[in-house]
């Protein structure tokens, strides 16, 4: 098997040059998907027969909840790659994705609370999904604060990577225990997002929104990674050349 592609991705310079045009595609696709999904979901999708219009926050809540989990998983995979192959770019991904992940998780929590108000009558219910999302939010915060409080950059990267891996090993156990705890304390509440057999007109805009959220994440994380690379490699010749070119233009 040819591994050169893999090593190329480890080079910050190569990554920076390759994403130069790719980032515009991410941004463009994110914009299209989000606009189409939002307009379709909010204006044209049919009303839910039980919840009325309040269900429409589904189009933001569910994509953000899905994305928040995916980011955690992606961070953990990237952390493992960074530790095993000593790939600095993988660490850069972990560090730049963490604040985005935390924000998206917070978005999921807030939209969950907004959805909860008309459905349950309160802003917050210790529903299994909301609770484990809350704990996941705390995990993100812990990882971010760990990264920010270690001064040595290499040490910080690796420590963060280990924390991510420990977190990802624990996340299924946490989710399981929270689910179990939930059935123990409050039997049979109405759970968000578990409406059986959703109509096609209802879930297609949702799917588009999910794609839009993923593209938005790809755009944001590439943007952040690129600026982090510039910061880290500021002494190198190619960054100087790049900046000079920018000034000329």
């Amino acid at each position, binding site marked *: 098997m040819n591994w050169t592609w893999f090593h190329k991705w480890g080079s910050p310079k190569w990554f920076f040059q390759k994403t130069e045009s790719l980032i515009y595609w991410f941004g463009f696709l994110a914009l299209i998907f989000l606009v189409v999904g939002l307009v379709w979901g909010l204006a044209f999708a049919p009303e839910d027969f039980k919840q009325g219009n309040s269900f429409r926050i589904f189009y933001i809540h569910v994509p953000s909840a899905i994305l928040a989990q995916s980011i955690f998983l992606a961070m953990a995979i990237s952390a493992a790659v960074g530790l095993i192959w000593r790939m600095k770019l993988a660490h850069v991904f972990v560090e730049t994705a963490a604040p985005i992940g935390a924000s998206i998780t917070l978005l999921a929590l807030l939209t969950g609370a907004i959805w909860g108000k008309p459905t349950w009558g309160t802003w917050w219910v210790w529903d299994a999904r909301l609770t484990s999302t809350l704990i996941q939010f705390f995990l993100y915060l812990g990882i971010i604060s760990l990264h920010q409080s270690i001064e040595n*950059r290499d040490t910080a990267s690796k420590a963060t990577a280990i924390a991510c891996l420990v977190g990802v090993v624990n996340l299924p156990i946490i989710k399981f225990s929270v689910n179990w705890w939930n059935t123990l304390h409050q039997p049979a509440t109405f759970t968000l997002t578990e409406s059986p057999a959703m109509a096609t007109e209802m879930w297609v805009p949702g799917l588009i929104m999910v794609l839009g959220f993923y593209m938005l994440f790809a755009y944001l994380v590439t943007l952040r990674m690129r600026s982090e690379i510039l910061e880290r490699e500021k002494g190198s010749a190619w960054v100087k050349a790049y900046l000079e070119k920018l000034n000329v233009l």
Partner: protein
Amino acid sequence: MVEEVSSVPLLEAKGICCERGDKQLFDSFDLSLKAGEILQLAGPNGSGKTTLLRSICGIFDARIDSLVWRGIPVTDPLQYADELLYLGHRPAIRHHLTLYENLSWYSCLSRCSDSAQLDQVIAEVGLQGYEDELASSLSAGQKRRIALARLRLVDCNLWVLDEPFASLDVEGVKMLCGWIQSFVQSGGSVAYSTHQPVEFSGCDSRILNIDSSRTLNRGGARQ
């Protein structure tokens, strides 16, 4: 420790790259040590003496292209750790254990416990009578002597000493110099850093000046 008459260096590290913070300290730097050689690292503060010593011990995050011990590439870090003894500038003393317990603990770690030997070593470093004192109540120089006692406890082939003369009195410096000389004469090698001028007569010793070595890649030999 058998005298070896061979041209193969005891330790050969090629392509050492390490950075501290944003500063590149060494970039593909080569270091080799013959058996029976004393290598003194010199250079101003912050030049990377400690970093280099830690790198060859394997306790610094350095990239080393090839690390060869007696002609054989190092693959097992535990076995390599067995060959060398590192004394950092932190003396690694457990303050809440007594002097005797400290040494006994250390000999547990290096799997060579012999209580008769412990008493003898304590006498050798001039700390008899302090065996049951807590390490925290001893002076800095005495703590340094406890750390040095390890050199007599463990059998190995390479001593890596970071500022071993710090806070030692004249007697202590003389004692350590004597140890280094007899260790080298029996085939061991020593790499150490110091700011004090120390002379070893009749030994194969050289000074590696780290600040200039980055361009020269080799220090001037003295003998």
